[in-house]
C-alpha cells in the first residue's frame, strides 16, 4: 500500500530523513517510534504529499507522490502533529467543511459526520467553537477530521496525545478495529501504545531506521529475557568463564572494575529461564561471596533506549 524506497529529505544542510526504505501492507498497523527530531513527522509529511522528498521514491496505493498527489490525498486521512484546526468554526461546521473538501456527497455527509461524532465521543461539545475546546477534545476533532471520508490509509501523528486514559483506550481500540481493513501508520513516543495497537514497529533515530520488525518478533525477543545484575566478592579471575558456562545464561558482561575485589556483572538470561539459583550454587561451589543480585525484565523501553542512544 505504501512503498518507500531510499527516501531522503534534507532541510538546508540538515538531513531529516536519511535513505530509509520500508513497505506497509494493507491491513497493517505500523508504529513509528523514535525520539524527538528523529524524522517521523517528516516521513509522514512526505507520505501525505505535504512536502516532496529530496530524493527517493515514495508510492502510495501504486501512485508516486510527485505525480499523482491528488489521487493519493484522496486515499489518506491525516492527523498532523500540531493538529491545526479552524478555531473560529463550530465543530459541526468544521466537519462539514472537511467533508465538502473531501468531496463527500451531501446526502451522505450527515450520516458520516454523525458517525464520527459517535466514534470520537464529541456529542457533548457539538455546538461549541473549536477554540473553546480542551486539548483532548481538539485531538478528537482532529481524529474525526482524519476519518470522516472513511480513508483506506490513516496517517496519525501522535494520535493519543492529550487524551485522558479512558479515551486513549477507546482510540487505541478504534485504531485496532480500523487496522483490520485499512492501513494505519501512527507515530508515538509512548511505547506501550505500540505494544497495545501495532502489528509492526519501526524505530527511527536521526533519520535512520534502526529497527524494523513485527511486534510479535519484538515481543518474542523480549519475552522472559531478563537481565541480572550480580556483585560478587572474589579474587578468582576465571569468574566470567564460570558464569558463562551456567545453563540459561546468554551473555555475561563485566560492568566496571574498581579497586575493590567486588566484581559487577550484567548477565542476560535466555528466554524463559531464571538462572539465579544456579548462579548461587556456582558461587557456593567456588567459594565466591555474592554481595547482591537483582533481576529485571527487559522491556521495549530498554530496546528503544539501546537503539536510539548516542
Amino acid at each position, binding site marked *: 500500500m505504501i512503498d518507500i524506497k531510499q527516501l531522503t529529505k534534507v532541510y538546508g544542510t540538515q538531513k531529516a530523513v536519511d535513505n530509509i526504505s520500508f513497505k506497509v501492507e494493507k491491513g497493517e498497523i505500523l508504529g513509528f517510534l523514535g525520539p524527538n527530531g528523529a524524522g517521523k513527522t517528516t516521513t509522514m509529511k512526505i507520505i*501525505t504529499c505535504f512536502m516532496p522528498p529530496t530524493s527517493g521514491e515514495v508510492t502510495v496505493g501504486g501512485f508516486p507522490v510527485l505525480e499523482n498527489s*491528488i489521487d493519493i490525498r484522496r486515499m489518506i486521512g491525516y492527523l*498532523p502533529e500540531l493538529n491545526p484546526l479552524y*478555531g*473560529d468554526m463550530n465543530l459541526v461546521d468544521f466537519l462539514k467543511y*472537511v467533508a465538502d*473538501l*473531501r468531496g463527500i456527497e451531501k446526502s451522505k455527509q450527515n450520516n458520516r459526520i454523525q458517525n464520527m461524532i459517535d466514534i470520537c465521543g464529541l456529542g457533548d461539545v457539538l455546538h461549541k467553537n473549536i477554540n473553546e475546546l480542551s486539548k483532548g477534545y481538539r485531538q478528537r476533532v482532529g481524529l474525526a477530521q482524519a476519518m470522516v471520508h472513511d480513508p483506506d490509509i490513516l496517517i496519525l501523528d501522535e494520535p493519543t496525545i492529550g487524551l485522558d486514559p479512558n479515551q486513549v483506550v477507546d482510540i487505541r481500540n478504534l485504531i485496532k478495529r480500523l487496522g483490520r481493513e485499512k492501513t494505519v501508520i501512527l507515530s508515538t513516543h509512548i511505547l506501550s501504545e505500540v505494544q497495545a495497537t501495532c502489528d509492526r514497529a519501526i524505530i527511527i533515530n536521526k533519520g535512520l531506521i534502526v529497527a524494523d520488525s513485527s511486534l510479535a518478533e519484538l515481543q518474542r525477543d523480549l519475552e522472559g529475557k531478563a537481565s541480572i545484575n550480580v556483585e560478587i566478592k572474589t579474587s578468582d579471575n576465571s569468574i566470567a568463564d564460570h558464569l558463562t558456562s551456567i545453563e540459561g545464561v546468554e551473555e555475561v558482561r563485566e560492568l566496571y572494575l574498581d579497586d575493590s575485589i567486588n566484581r559487577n556483572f550484567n548477565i542476560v538470561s535466555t528466554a524463559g529461564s531464571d538462572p539465579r539459583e544456579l548462579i548461587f550454587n556456582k558461587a557456593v561451589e567456588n567459594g565466591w561471596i555474592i554481595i547482591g543480585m537483582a533481576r529485571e525484565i527487559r522491556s521495549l523501553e530498554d530496546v528503544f533506549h539501546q537503539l536510539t542512544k548516542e
Partner: protein
Amino acid sequence: MQNILTIFKHELRSYFDSPIAYVVIIVFLLFTGWFFTTNFFLVGQADMRVVFQIIPLAFLFFTPAITMRLISEERKTGTMELLVTMPISDSSIIIGKYLASVVLLTAMVIPTLVYAITIASLGDMDFGSTIGGYLGLVLMGSAFLAIGTLGSSLTENQVIAFIISWLIMFAFYMMDKILYYLPTSLVSFVEYMAIEYHFNNISRGVIDSRDLLYYLSMIALSLFLAARMMAARRLR
C-alpha cells in the same frame, strides 16, 4: 469547480462571521462619504467624478487589508497543512479565496450607489459614465485584490503581507502620475502599465478591450504567481 466553491463559501463566511467585513465596509463608506459630501454642494455638478477620484486611493489602503490574511493566516495557524493535504489543487484554493475577497469588495462598493442615486435625483447624470465607472471600480479593485492575494502568499506575517501588497499596488498606482519625469520613449508603456489609467478610460463610459485585457491579465498573472508561491513554499 466544486472545490473552488467550497473554499469560496468558507472564506466568505469567515469574512462575514468576524468583524473584518463590517469594519472594512463601514470605514470605507465613512471615508468616501466624507469626500462626497464636503464638496458636493459647492461644485454643483451632477456627476460622480469626486467619488471616482477618491475610491482608487481608498482601494490602495483597503484592498491589502482585505487580502492580507487570506493565505498568511492559514500558514501561521498551521491549517494550511490540513488544507493542502486535502484532494484539491493549489489553484482552487487561491481562486476560491480570491473570489471571496472580490465579493467583499463588491459589497463594500455597492452602498456608494446611494451617491449615484442622490445625484440622479438632483440633476441630469451621465448614466454611461456612471455605469462604466462602477464596472471600472470592480475591475480595478479585483486587480488590486489579486496583487494582495499574491502578497499574502509570500509570508506568514499579515503585517508584512499588507506592506508588500501595498508597495506593489502603490507602484502601479503611481505610474501614470509620474509621466512628466520619464523619457518620452517610455511614457506610453508606463502609462499602459498604470492601474488607474485604465479605470479612467472605462469610467469615461468607453469600454475598450485593451483596458479589460489589462485588468484580466493582471488578475491572472497575480493569481498564477500566488499559486506558484504557495507550492514553492511547501517544497521547503
